[in-house]
């Protein structure tokens, strides 16, 4: 199974990972091999089979609507790359 350079570039954009030109050939090979492995799935007969999203047959527990969290801004922002006046900073976003 081959994956095209175009697909790799498109997916890298979706995943927000910068790729350099030199990395593409290796990725074409490696991702191609992985997808060949994965293609084995197509041989399976899955008609009328429900997808399994969770291994346990359980339903969601709901939480009571009570405040349990306090202000921990100082602790959380002590480990942040860039903050000012309590805000997280990123390069200017043009909407």
């Amino acid at each position, binding site marked *: 199974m081959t994956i095209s350079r175009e697909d*790799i570039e498109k*997916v890298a954009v979706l995943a927000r990972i910068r790729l350099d030109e030199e990395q593409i050939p290796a*990725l074409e090979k490696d991702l191609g091999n*992985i997808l060949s492995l994965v293609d084995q799935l197509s041989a*399976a007969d899955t008609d009328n089979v429900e997808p399994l999203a969770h*291994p346990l047959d359980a339903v969601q527990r709901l939480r009571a609507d009570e405040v349990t969290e306090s202000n921990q801004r100082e602790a959380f922002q002590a*480990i942040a790359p860039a903050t000012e006046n309590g805000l997280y900073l990123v390069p200017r976003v043009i909407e």
Partner: protein
Amino acid sequence: MHKKSVAELSRELESGKISSVELTREFLDRIKAEDGQYNSFITVTEDHSMADAKAADEQRAAGNAGIWTGIPFAHKDIFCTKGVATTAGSKMLANFVPPYDATVTANFRAVGAVCLGKTNMDEFAMGSSNESSFYGPVTNPWGLSNGEKRVPGGSSGGSATAIAARLIPAATATDTGGSIRQPAALCGITGLKPTYGRVSRYGIIAFASSLDQGGTMARTAEDNALMLNVMAGFDPKDSTSADRAVPDYTSILNEPLKGLRVGLPKEYFSDQLSPAMEEQVRNAVKEYERLGAIVKEVSLPHANLAIAAYYVIAPAEASANLSRFDGVRYGYRCENPQDLNDLYTRTRAEGFGGEVKRRILVGTYALSAGYFDAYYLKAQKVRRLIQQDFINAFKEVDVLMSPVSPSPAFVQGEKTSDPVTMYLEDIFTIAVNLAGVPAMSIPAGFVDGLPVGLQIIGNYFEEARLLNAAHQFQQVTDWHQKLPQ
């Protein structure tokens, strides 16, 4: 002391022959002296550990000691430890010091255990050889005497190695596709992956949410049971946590195995297994027959699709779980980002290693428009078929037994040229994660002087039965006590 199990050390501490401070000092000194050749630790918390050991001794003096009070151990560097660097083996989190504990971490604190540090691992738990860590590969103690640098297995290679090298008696670990069982097998120690939902995932850095499970590693089944007693339990902070009572996992260790029905999945005894490996595994099974087990062949008809299904589902979930690593709120951030897109794309290109990036790309591809049905949805359907295979098998037998890995510990670099070659290391372990059933790896023999593991797979929430089976085997064999030179 360093050769003693947790159970034994606990008795030593209780008898007063040694203090936790002395014990902790001994292990810390061993780590300092020996770990250079293994690289099994990313962070050693000397000061914290000594303080915790002192506190444990004070607890004991006050009459408040339990089994775990003052016992040295370590956490795989995927468990968030408040105030202590938690890296997941990645550059992306090299500077991440969480202001919170994982639930598992808190549990061990509550019982007074003394954490000596954070063990090395494949980056973001993606790997089977511990060669992808940003902090350098881990070297298996087995094979070193021959001058060979072999892999310890992965992703929990650091925990497995540190235990095998007697640097710590026990360590926490995680298993998503075999990451406890395979390194346990390659390092000659005992490891257990519990039923999905048995151990809280809160504070475990997520790789694949529907597959990840925190588990235990030590040298004996009894120690694994003692660990599971601390780790298991319902956690309201984890929606996938099973709301189910926790038994005392040590309580049935000594039950005789007479009448235990054992199934050998024929798909796991195929030509992927070398004759030498197969011989060791079958010998171990014969030992079980001597203990009273009734062995027969069973089938897991869709076992051969497990790897394919896993390498869609796990990367797909991982691709979303790792989107939060963007240089904004914590972790690595590239220098001088020119704009938002540059911030994201360069932070992630520089912060993640090669295997992580490959899996994110595969996962993103599998979820993308046009491919979702053929890949993700298809894989989830196959997953149900695989789960059904186990459900059916457990109608006939109590446990399944199989090899853990197709080969013993291989040499570093041997399988890194093609990702798929590495993925095939997990052919015997991966179906277990897809189904969510519990499984163990116990030392069962040697091939060319390298440890071989036996996998024991149980039905949902039957960890006690697995530990019982493992413990009985360890009463009549001594593979688990073998030391690397």
